[in-house]
């Protein structure tokens, strides 16, 4: 036997390929896969949520602290009663599920917003009420929130959030690397946000129907959008913390265009006289003015 010494072979056990190329392919592939999966699950949750009987949503909501709380003073309770009356009038045109019992809450806080959530709860903040000049504009907000309840958007969002959370936790634990998991979960959240905008459009559409049926015109929607334009940070999606309304309901051009389109499609007037605000709500404006 002849004993030889040869240098180790190069390029057999490892490759010279630039690792950035591999990274690019893997990132594109994995983000694409997560987006697709999150998208499919979102669609499934959105489809499924309104089909789950409302009583299960109500049962779940009963386990959470209530959002639509009653104010602890007479003025606040008067505002709540007026909001409730407007909600009941609009709800009559909205074909809400029979077993849904509306709960309208009012909070004496400066936040400029209103929201609808699990268990058919709608909550208005004083900050928003003092910005609105007519009952019509207030009714547009109310009808929009009631439409979220009608379409069960809160339970759709909950179902979607839970399903996507489960997917991402599976994906990221599979990766065995928290860093990769974080990037993927951020991608999943972006999908969640884009879906909420579709729901906002659906809610606007149902709200316009109810507004037209109750008031005979949709001037309230125009008024509301005009008010939103004057808010600090109007037309932009980011704004001060007090003006949550613009963050959760971005006033995009497509939203304004959709209202104009709806008006012309349905022959709805926008310039009829507005109804004045009910007294207790109107009083909030005069208190905050000076």
């Amino acid at each position, binding site marked *: *036997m*002849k*004993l*030889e*010494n040869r*240098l*180790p072979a190069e390029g057999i*056990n*490892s*490759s010279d*390929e630039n*690792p*950035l190329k*591999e*990274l690019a392919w*893997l*990132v594109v*592939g*994995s983000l694409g*896969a997560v987006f697709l999966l999150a998208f499919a699950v979102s669609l499934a949750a959105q489809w499924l949520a309104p089909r789950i009987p409302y009583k299960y949503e109500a049962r779940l909501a009963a386990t959470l602290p209530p959002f639509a709380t009653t104010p602890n003073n007479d003025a606040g309770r008067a505002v709540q009663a007026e909001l409730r009356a407007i909600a009941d009038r609009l709800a009559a045109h909205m074909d809400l599920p029979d077993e849904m019992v509306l709960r309208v809450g009012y909070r004496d806080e400066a936040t400029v917003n209103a929201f609808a959530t699990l268990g058919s709860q709608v909550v208005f903040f004083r900050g928003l009420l003092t910005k609105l000049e007519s009952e019509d504009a207030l009714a547009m907000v109310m009808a929009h929130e009631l439409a979220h309840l009608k379409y069960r958007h809160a339970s759709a969002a909950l179902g979607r959030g839970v399903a996507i959370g489960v997917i991402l936790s599976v*994906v990221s634990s*599979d*990766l*065995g*690397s*928290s*860093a*990769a998991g*974080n*990037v993927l979960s*951020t991608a999943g959240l972006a999908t969640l946000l884009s879906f909420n905008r579709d729901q906002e459009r659906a809610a606007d559409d149902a709200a316009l129907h109810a507004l037209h049926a109750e008031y005979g015109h949709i001037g309230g929607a125009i008024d509301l959008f005009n008010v939103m334009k004057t808010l600090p940070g109007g037309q932009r999606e980011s704004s001060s913390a007090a003006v949550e309304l613009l963050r959760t309901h971005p006033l995009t051009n497509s939203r304004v265009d959709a209202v104009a389109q709806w008006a012309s499609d349905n022959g709805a007037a926008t310039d009829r006289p507005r109804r004045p605000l009910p007294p207790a709500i109107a009083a909030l404006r005069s208190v905050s003015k000076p």
Partner: protein
Amino acid sequence: MLDLIELGLFITLLVVGFFAGSIVEKRHYASIRKREREYADVLAYAVRFPPDRVTPQRAFLVHGTVVISSDYFKTFVAGLRNLFGGRVRTYETLMERARREAMLRLKHHARSQGAKLVICVRFETTTISTGWAASIEVFAFGTALIPDHNTALSFPSRSVAAA
């Protein structure tokens, strides 16, 4: 905001991992190739028994061990690779460097003991840590032989050729 900071931190770690890792790897390979030539006179084989005509005067265990760590970039790419399967190229260079380094240390050990022939060379690998900073240990060991001077043995290396 917090998400942005997290993302920025992550990208910084990835970039640092990539550049630092590339420089370290390039230097390590250069050092390995240089020392492989320097240790060309120490022969190492996987055979279990001494080659023909080698009459060992002395035999003893020699070993070389190295602990080597992945970088953030390599671990991240490997983590994504786990989703799809296939060659984990970023770890292949890591393992190759570790094996060649362990072999060099084994040869260094053998030469320091006066041996120029090692047989029955084996490798062991241990994972020291997993997660975002994976480290591995590679351990090479073998039996060093110091042959009888009278034995006619055809060594190709410099030292023998000079003798």
